[in-house]
């Protein structure tokens, strides 16, 4: 089988005098390393420069707020169900009177945790979310000294009131219409399917 065109037929033959002196081969090798001296360096000096990433990069998650600043998540648990790595866990709470500005609907996530060590950044949680609450962003999850620090709670996940996180790169109009288009099976309700 020929996987690449680079394979060579290897024959074991006696070395010629020139070859058995090894010196020409050594100089050839040294010329190769010397040429690398002047090549462009592959290093990216990380804190100062960052690697260029795709616009739809799937990095650290964000829990979105709506325009008024209320949390969109209703703790339905669909993201946790969709998660193939079982990295998401949550506990639901009931909205008290006077908390209408904090939470968008009657039910909200009291605890919402994503284990960043388990997460495989596939984006299925984002796809499953019916409330447009969770998104993956182009932020890179920072490293830490303990495993515990890598379990991100609501303090790290929910976007700040003043510092909103831009997710338009992942939530383009195309994506939005795709997610709400009833002709796709995953957007159909049970009744829709019965009708067909």
């Amino acid at each position, binding site marked *: 089988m020929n996987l690449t065109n680079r394979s060579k037929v290897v024959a074991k033959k006696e070395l010629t005098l020139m070859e058995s002196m090894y010196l020409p081969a050594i100089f050839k090798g*040294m010329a190769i*390393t010397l040429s690398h001296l002047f090549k*462009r*360096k592959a*290093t990216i*000096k990380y804190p100062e420069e960052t690697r260029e990433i795709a616009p739809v990069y799937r990095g650290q998650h964000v829990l979105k707020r709506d325009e008024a600043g209320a949390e969109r998540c209703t703790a339905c648990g669909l993201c946790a169900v969709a998660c193939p790595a079982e990295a998401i866990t949550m506990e639901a709470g009931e909205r008290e009177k006077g908390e209408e500005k904090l939470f968008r609907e009657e039910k909200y996530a009291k605890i919402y945790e994503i284990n960043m060590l388990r997460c495989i950044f596939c984006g299925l949680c984002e796809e499953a979310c019916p409330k447009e609450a969770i998104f993956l962003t182009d932020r890179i999850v920072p490293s830490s000294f303990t495993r515990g620090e890598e379990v991100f709670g609501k303090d790290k996940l929910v976007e700040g009131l003043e510092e909103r996180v831009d997710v338009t790169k992942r939530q383009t109009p195309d994506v939005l219409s795709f997610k709400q288009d009833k002709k796709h099976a995953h957007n159909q309700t049970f009744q829709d399917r019965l009708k067909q």
Partner: protein
Amino acid sequence: MDQIIIYKIILCAIVFVVTLGAAAYMTWGERKLASWLQDRVGPDRAGPFGLLQPIADGLKMLFKEEMIPTHSNKWLFILGPSFFMLTACMTGAVIPWGAGFTIDGTFFPMQIADINIGLLYMLGVVSIGVYGIMIGGWSSNNKFALLGALRASSQMISYEVAMGLALIALVMLTGTLNLGEIVAQQDADYAYIVYQPLGFLIFLICAFAETNRAPFDLPESESELVGGFHTEYSSMKLGFFLFAEYINMFISSAVMASLYFGGYNFPFQHELGLEGNLLSAIQTAVFLGKILIFIFVFMWVRWTLPRFRYDQLMNLGWKVLLPLAIFNIFITGLVMYFTGKL
């Protein structure tokens, strides 16, 4: 007379400091060059261009925990790296670093000890260097360290033979063992590389082997074995072993530059119209430049060639280099006989 003694002490101190400083910055240079040859950037965090890296490395070594194995011979264990370091620094004494300066009618030579057996002294010191490795490996009371020391010392002894024979051909040509005179002869004549290309090649290969540099770095083999003779060493004692390698490299570069490449002499030096101290200063700078080029070659080879297998190493030393060196002596003798130099 006193003036000369004080001057010699100062020169000693300068050569010592320059050797150590050069060795320290060679560790930085080695890492930089290694990374450039591998398309990387290298250390650039400590100071501008990572220039403070040797200091950081040295401090790291100093603050590491000092471990002396329980059943080792403590004095020999400490003596090993000290000896290695000492012999590494000793050769610098006979190398002519420049033509010398004249101040107020007094001549100050740029050579610490102008002894007439300079070359022999150098070979002797190189031979003593084996003891540092042997004592260190043996006193560790560790099988692997002992095996590593045996490996290292048999390599160094094997290559000393070919090295000495390569130098004999040179000595036949120069008629003296005095390093200062050998360099001075290359001012009047061509550099000896022209007459001794094969001798130089043998000497270069042996110098790689003697300084335990790649492709002959089997004594250490840091990428595949436990670390050879310095397995049990830690902290600055390990640092001494590693550091002495760089001093050895610096010194052997200086020896090669002065024996085969004209030392502090450079082409057309007398046509420049410069005289005395200024010319002498330029010559010293040129000599240091030549040393730098050799150091570059040392590192360049290290990051190009893979390590020899042990039997290949022994084959090369005894079956190739030794006959070649004898052949070189023979040819040199024949040529000298027929050109009437003998």
